[in-house]
């Protein structure tokens, strides 16, 4: 039943984009790169503002001038950060989600201390949100 070949749309993970890198610095230093707007903007590109608190707001202006608004959902200092974001002028129902996970890599055996950084972006979940609202209003 399940397809034989490796066409991308046969992969169940087609539902999100995920990337992982290793940084040669402890999680505290990686986390700090999110906390100040100048530093965040420098690596994010464009102008990036994010209030790293649950319920905190954010605003990302891309290099082309496109603006996305954000709302911080989950904060676990030095470990986990997740926010919703949606294009300016659109409903927050059109929000996609971004989640960062930082995992400290121990310096056992003389290895360098480092951090594994994983980011996962999910596409806009409008349909899911709409069905929740439909369920709430009918129930």
């Amino acid at each position, binding site marked *: 039943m399940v*397809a034989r070949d490796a066409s991308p749309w046969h992969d169940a993970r087609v*539902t999100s984009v995920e990337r992982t890198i290793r940084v040669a610095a402890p999680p505290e*230093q990686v986390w700090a790169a999110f906390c100040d707007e100048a530093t965040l903007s420098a690596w994010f590109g464009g102008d990036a503002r994010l209030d790293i608190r649950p319920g905190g707001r954010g605003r990302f202006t891309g290099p082309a001038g496109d603006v996305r608004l954000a709302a911080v959902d989950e904060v676990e200092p030095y470990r986990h950060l997740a926010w919703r974001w*949606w*294009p300016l002028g659109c409903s927050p129902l*059109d929000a996609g989600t971004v989640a960062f996970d930082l995992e400290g890599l121990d310096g056992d055996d003389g290895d360098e201390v480092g951090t594994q950084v994983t980011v996962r972006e999910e*596409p806009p979940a409008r349909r899911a949100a709409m069905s929740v609202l439909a369920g709430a209003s009918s129930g």
Partner: protein
Amino acid sequence: VVEADRPDVDAIFTALADPTRRAVLRSLAEGGAATATQLATRFPVSRQAVAKHLTALGDAGLVAPERSGREVRYRVTPDPLLDAMGWMAAVGSQWDRRLDALRARVEAGRES
């Protein structure tokens, strides 16, 4: 460029998350347009189940019904699939660039 704000991308991903729907879509792509009854002979599921999957694929814009006489045949409409793949490619390359810049920035700060 396909951007992250396409509301229909989620419908496409939701439709493709089910292995039977992917198999139905593959069957239509390989074998050409077919009716729900014809498709049901190719999979160990009922015609009703196939019809539900076709509805979900149709909602996502991945298949389109065509009426010919008393039959309704479904054919693949690939454009939304290209949108979804385009979203993944665009978003993935943005994160590749940002993560490279993040690493460079943090590691440079550490050396100074």
